[in-house]
């Protein structure tokens, strides 16, 4: 872990971030927050729908904006996050919120991949939804929301350790 942090800090990206002027960190941080907001906002809408909110809105209509926005938000957040991390990587040594955050992100991605292969997800547009499929989608949405709330909260708290 220590070796990874030292390597990240010494990487070209880290060097680039440190030599890009006094506003570099602030601007990249801003883009990171906007990306996280995009990801979290989209996920929040879709997951609350899976949990049972807005049943009159067809899932297909909500998927169309939320899934691409969530994917785009995640990609931008991952890129900008790597830039922020490499700037002063070794300062995160021993910070428990970093571990919690990355574990939550890994679980959130794993959950998304698993849900996509569920029979309930493939049958999600059926009207009416079979009760066991509905329950599976509630678990999927709840798990997703728990993962992303944890990731966002732990991410915010990294600076307070």
């Amino acid at each position: 872990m220590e070796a990874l942090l030292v390597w990240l800090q010494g990487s070209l990206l880290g060097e680039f971030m440190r030599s890009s002027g006094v506003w570099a960190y602030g601007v990249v941080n801003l883009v990171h927050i906007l990306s996280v907001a995009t990801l979290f906002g989209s996920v929040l809408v879709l997951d609350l729908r899976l949990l049972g909110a807005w049943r009159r809105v067809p899932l297909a209509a909500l998927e169309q904006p939320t899934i691409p926005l969530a994917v785009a938000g995640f990609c931008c957040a991952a890129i900008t996050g790597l830039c922020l991390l490499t700037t002063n990587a070794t300062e995160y040594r021993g910070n428990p919120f970093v571990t919690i955050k990355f574990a939550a992100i890994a679980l959130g991605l794993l959950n998304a991949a698993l849900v996509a292969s569920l029979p309930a997800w493939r049958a999600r547009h059926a009207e009416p939804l079979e009760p066991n499929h509905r329950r599976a989608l509630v678990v999927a949405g709840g798990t997703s929301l728990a993962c992303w709330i944890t990731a966002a909260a732990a991410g915010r708290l990294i600076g307070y350790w």
Partner: protein
Amino acid sequence: MHTRFVALAGTFALTLGAPAFAHHGWGGQQTEKTEIAGTLKTDVNLSGPHATMQITDDKGQVWDVTLAPPPRTQNAGLKPGVIPVGAKVKIVGNRNSDLKKFEIKTVRVTYDGKNFDVYPDRT
């Protein structure tokens, strides 16, 4: 149903936003000011969320000096090369509440009779 979910979403937003307010109260630092005299060990670094430098106090203890965010620190006149490494400096700030850590959030750096007020509203 509608109202309930709006309330739920609002609660999430407030929960995530809450620590942002705490940031500006300098939680984790002592409320009273500490003054340290010493010499500059590591020059000012203007990258990352806050500018930093290191000083060695008169007893030989090395302190991690946390300054303002980089643009603000630079506007206060403090940037790499302004204070020579090894020069006598005096700093005033709020020390980390954990006394095992030698870290201080600094509001003023004094060198050669000149004050660099990185947080003028906190001095």
